[in-house]
């Protein structure tokens, strides 16, 4: 056996060598970047146009389907009415979400710190979750004086469970070897929670938050439908319901669009928070380079 020495490879001098595959990929990335925004915008414009043409060409009466122009007009003209309603629904949703976070995380921590607490309370959390909120809302209306507080409770019940269940799983998902390492170093319960369980639970909690954000809005809308009926004039959903009684379909659609817009904003905000907190280390937030 012998080992032959190979002549060293001369250093690369040509600096503008272009890898065809890489160049194609860069071009594709650029196109995707533009298409990501232009395609949905174009779709939106086309849908609005089709909607407008359908309504005007077929002479559809506005109490069956108002055209996009009428809806736009309603948003502008009724803004004085819609904006306070939107603020009420927004406050309802965000407060419900906030209390869901506080309650869900606190209970999840209690569950993971004490098996007894979990055994005692988990079944009730499930019962609360599986009972349709529409069925509870009228009861709350009887027992709670303030319509806002009753609605808040409804939205909270719906938003609370995903936070609780995701955070509980997350807190339990810490790597076993890391658990052992903490044991060897004599970590206290608090240190274990603070430095190991909490960071392990963060991605799970954030996934729960994204679900809970949407559910809080749904809970708020349902509550307004059921509780706001009694002329308490809560938020956007109450406005929507009232507009339907008055056959004011322009306002009805305006309220509907604003509710959807709020949903989109909540989703965008929770996604952004999730991205900012996880981008440095979590697989879900990492870009892969081939």
């Amino acid at each position, binding site marked *: 056996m012998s080992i032959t020495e190979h002549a060293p490879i001369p250093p690369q001098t040509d600096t503008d060598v272009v890898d065809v595959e890489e160049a194609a990929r860069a071009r594709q990335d650029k196109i995707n970047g533009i298409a990501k925004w232009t395609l949905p915008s174009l779709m939106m414009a086309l849908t609005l146009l089709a909607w407008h043409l359908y309504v005007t060409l077929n002479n559809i009466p506005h109490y069956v389907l108002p055209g996009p122009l009428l809806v736009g007009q309603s948003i502008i003209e009724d803004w004085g009415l819609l904006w306070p309603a939107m603020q009420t629904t927004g406050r309802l949703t965000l407060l419900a979400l906030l209390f869901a976070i506080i309650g869900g995380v606190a209970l999840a921590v209690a569950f993971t710190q004490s098996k007894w607490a979990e055994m005692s309370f988990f079944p009730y959390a499930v019962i609360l979750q599986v009972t349709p909120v529409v069925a509870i809302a009228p009861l709350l209306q009887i027992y709670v004086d303030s319509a806002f507080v009753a609605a808040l409770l409804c939205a909270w019940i719906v938003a609370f469970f995903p936070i609780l269940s995701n955070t509980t799983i997350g807190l339990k998902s810490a790597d076993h070897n890391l658990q052992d390492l903490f044991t*060897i170093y004599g970590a206290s319960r608090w240190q274990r929670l603070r430095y190991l369980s909490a960071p392990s639970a963060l991605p799970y909690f954030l996934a729960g938050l994204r679900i809970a954000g949407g559910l809080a809005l749904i809970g708020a809308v349902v509550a307004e439908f059921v509780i706001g009926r009694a002329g308490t004039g809560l938020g956007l959903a109450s406005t929507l319901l009232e507009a339907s009684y008055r056959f004011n379909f322009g306002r009805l659609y305006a309220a509907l669009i604003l509710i959807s817009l709020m949903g989109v904003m909540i989703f965008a905000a929770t996604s952004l928070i999730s991205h900012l907190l996880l981008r440095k280390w979590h697989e879900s937030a990492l870009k892969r380079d081939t």
Partner: protein
Amino acid sequence: MTLPLGQRAPLLSMNHIEKTFAGNVTALRDMSLNVNEGDFLSLLGPSGCGKSTALRLIAGLSHPTRGRIEWQGGKNKDDLGIVFQEPTLMPWATVAQNVWLPFRLRGTAFDAVKNDIDEILKLVGLESFHDAYPRELSGGMKMRVAIARAMVTKPRLILMDEPFAALDEITRFKLNNDLLALKDAIGCTVIFVTHSVFESVFLSDRIIVMAARPGRVIHEVEVDTPYPRSEAFRTSAEYSAHTRATSDALGEAIGEAA
């Protein structure tokens, strides 16, 4: 500088240890072992011989069914460092923060041990990866961080549970050499679990050969080649002789189990 075998002070002793798991599975039977200050001791054996169980008992992660483990001068939780088969780093923390962990759990602020962290990262060759996240590192580099974390507090004893088993051979050889240099620099004792004859001979001065079902010690092989051992040791006649002796002992362990 490590004293020769036979002149070392005792560190801990396992006396007639037995460990039985639920369902009456005897993981270890009548294991007695004296570990001395400065030993590089390998536990070598087939799967199921209880070598990892022995390591967990020494770490205090589980307790013997029978028998006692006695530490010379009593056991202090600062005496121990451990390296698992996986790097077991916290993915949300930087390299330096990961290495800080043992100090952090003692309540020591980062700035107070900044120099210790820098020093150990330099020793494992990762000084320029101070602020990197584990995902940015290769498998071998992650393992270096895990070793740095175990050694940063300069514990008396480092336990290693097949730390290089998942690495490629080139990386493993390099880490073997570096581990010996680190042990010398820190001046600690190492208990190293492995199923590789070659690795155990290269690294250790004492090899405890274990057999399975039930897990027990059947041989001790001494590798009296002095440290520092260079890469040339791997191809020496001395190395072959030790490898053959260890292989034979292991063969006996496997034969007995079958």
